């Protein structure tokens, strides 16, 4: 990925790469949180809402840096 500002075209609509990374990060964090709930692992967190925000940020950065390029 070139280290220059770029946009992503979806059907002719140009989207900022951070938006796409954030959407993917939000989706991945939601799925992880649901898995934690399912296996009762959420009880080990003091404040799940803050953990969710943290996971959204981490996933967004991971997707952005390694797959999309922000």
């Amino acid at each position, binding site marked *: 990925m070139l280290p220059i500002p770029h946009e992503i075209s979806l059907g002719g609509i140009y989207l900022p790469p951070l938006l796409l990374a954030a959407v993917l990060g939000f989706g991945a964090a939601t799925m992880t949180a*649901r898995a934690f709930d399912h296996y009762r692992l959420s*009880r080990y967190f003091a404040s799940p*809402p803050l953990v969710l925000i943290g996971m959204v940020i981490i996933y967004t950065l991971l997707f952005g840096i390694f797959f999309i390029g922000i």
Partner: protein
Amino acid sequence: MLKLPPLSVATRESIKTALAMVSVYGITLSLDWGKAAWAGLAVAVVSQSSLGMSLNKAALRMLGTLMAVVAALVIVAHFPQDRWLFMAALSSWLGVCTYLSLGAKDSYFWQIGGWVSVIICVNAATSHSGAFEIAMLRTQQTGLGILVYSLVALLIWPRNSRGDLREAFERLQSAQLALFQECRAVLAGAGRTTALVNARSDLVHAQSAVSPLLDAAIADSHLVHERRREWQQLLASSTELTELLERLSESLYQVDDRLLRELLPGIDSYCSGVERRLQALTGPVGEMQPGEPQEYGKIAVEAARIPDSRLLDSAVVTVLRRLLQRVSEQVDSVAQAACAISNEAKSRGSKFPAVADTGAASRMLGNLMPDPDRLGGVARVIFTIWLAYLGYLYVDGLPAGPLILSLAASLSIALAAMPFVAPRKIFLPVLVAILCSGAIYLLVLPHLSTFWSLGPLIFGVTFALCLLFSGPRRAAGRSIALAFFVSVMGISNSQVYSFSAVANMLVVVTLLLILLSFAAYIPFSPRPEHMFQRQLGQFMCSCAWLLTGRPTGWRSRYHRNLVARIPARLSLLAGVIERRYLPGDSEANLRAVVARCEALAARINALVEARLHAGDVAGKNATGAALESWQGAAADALERLAAVTRKGERPAPANSSAREGAQLREIENLLRQYHGATGAPAGSQPDGRQLEGALLLLGVSRSVSELLASLTEQLRGIDWRKWSEPRFF
């Protein structure tokens, strides 16, 4: 001749709303007033299922808008150049409106007063027009929408609420009769059946339906308006009767049947008389004939049969006797009010005095009392609006920043009333509304050139949305759909079409819902089960304070206000707690906990009143000290319960009730000694009134003690550990 099938109520109401919507757009566009969406919004919101309800909501919207105009102009005039003071003043005003909207009967008025002032201020700050022009335009467009809808609703298929009001009163009186009959069955030894619980629940539902219908009928029916004092008197008497019947139904399980019959041998005939009079009430309201004044009568007490060894049980019978007499008096009061509405009474020109609303002052005071839950709602709204404001100021390229501020104010105030609704749950309906409106805006609207082609489109979409979301349960969905329809379309005389307008709206709503989801945790968790635990703990702490604290003073008022309000919140929250937290019989336990809290609130209130009136008896002798000791023990038990439920632990068995029971026995002995003391100076002997007051105090104390034990048992049936377990969703 072609005969059309009769139209349903939903179809008629949808046609009326659609017609009003087309008319306001027609007027606004032809006069080139601008901001036609504001008039469309007014039509969308004030259209209700009956004319009276629409008129009442329209009045609240108009008055709220006028108040908001004044507030917004004052804020803009005082802080035109200082954005931080301007925002501090605006958010403080929003906080005041939020706080008052969460407690007042006319909460919509305060909601409008809050968010319309934000809309005016934001529009004034970001457009070329002055604040005064914006404020006047908002008032004008709101007034236009209200006027047009009111005219349409008055002229086309007017639907008044008089018939609904009569039916609601008939249902209420039937429910009151049914509950009284169930109470009689329990008194006759039939046991505490589920039928009693169901009858009580039916009565609560029937009672809650009457008040809004009466307000609507006063507005839309001149017959009801003419006799409004009588109708209001009937409502006040019926409400009082409902409360008494609820208290009666909760008092029954403490009574010893045999002792009851021994002490009150005439109770069956007395109850038959009350039931007969209640049956006479169940006919159509307004067709009752005024009969002879009813004798209240009294239930004769066989004083000689009061067993010395069972003074405590006799005290409970005293409480029941007083309650039955008050029910009887209230039945007569309802009958008199119902007769006054009938035609015969009207022809005789009998006029009811204006209803003396003795509770108005205390309601107003209670509304202004500090309330942690409502203050939490204020903190949430202020946090949301500040976060949106800071985002608008400091995030470069944030699309439609002013729109975010306006939407943040309106949505956060609306959600403050129901914090348990997760903002993510409204994302899908809003997304669908924006996408559908966006499709019409981008694909259909550019092909329309005149109002004759635009009008049918507005009519068709409005009609379809109203029909799709007809009925009171879907009213919120209809408002959301119509609000986004008029906002996305943005119809004006110089129409522009832009894909970015729809895309920006989508981004704004997504960002806003994320913001609201984040703010929902300020300052408390919004999860219904956590809210229930917190409210229950607060309720118990306030009950504990009232048991031991001074019955007068502002702290007493503060706790009494909380004790009066929290049971209704618990009832609301119990209905939205997810089923996964209520396995097995837990759901029944939860309902029982709510019912016990309602009963406990009534008993604590009665206890405070009894302490105020019987203080002279209790304070003069050892009874006072023993009573204080019992109150301290009961308060400790309540505080322990509050602590364990907040921590998510299972309460210990109610073995402490044995200790409290022993303390009550001690009070009973002291009271008996005091009553039967020989050789005491004549002046120190209690008279009959004082003794009855002391017996009442003793009876209420015992019922509090038993309710506490019962509440503990019900709380033990719920898995509090699971409720407190942290979860993501």
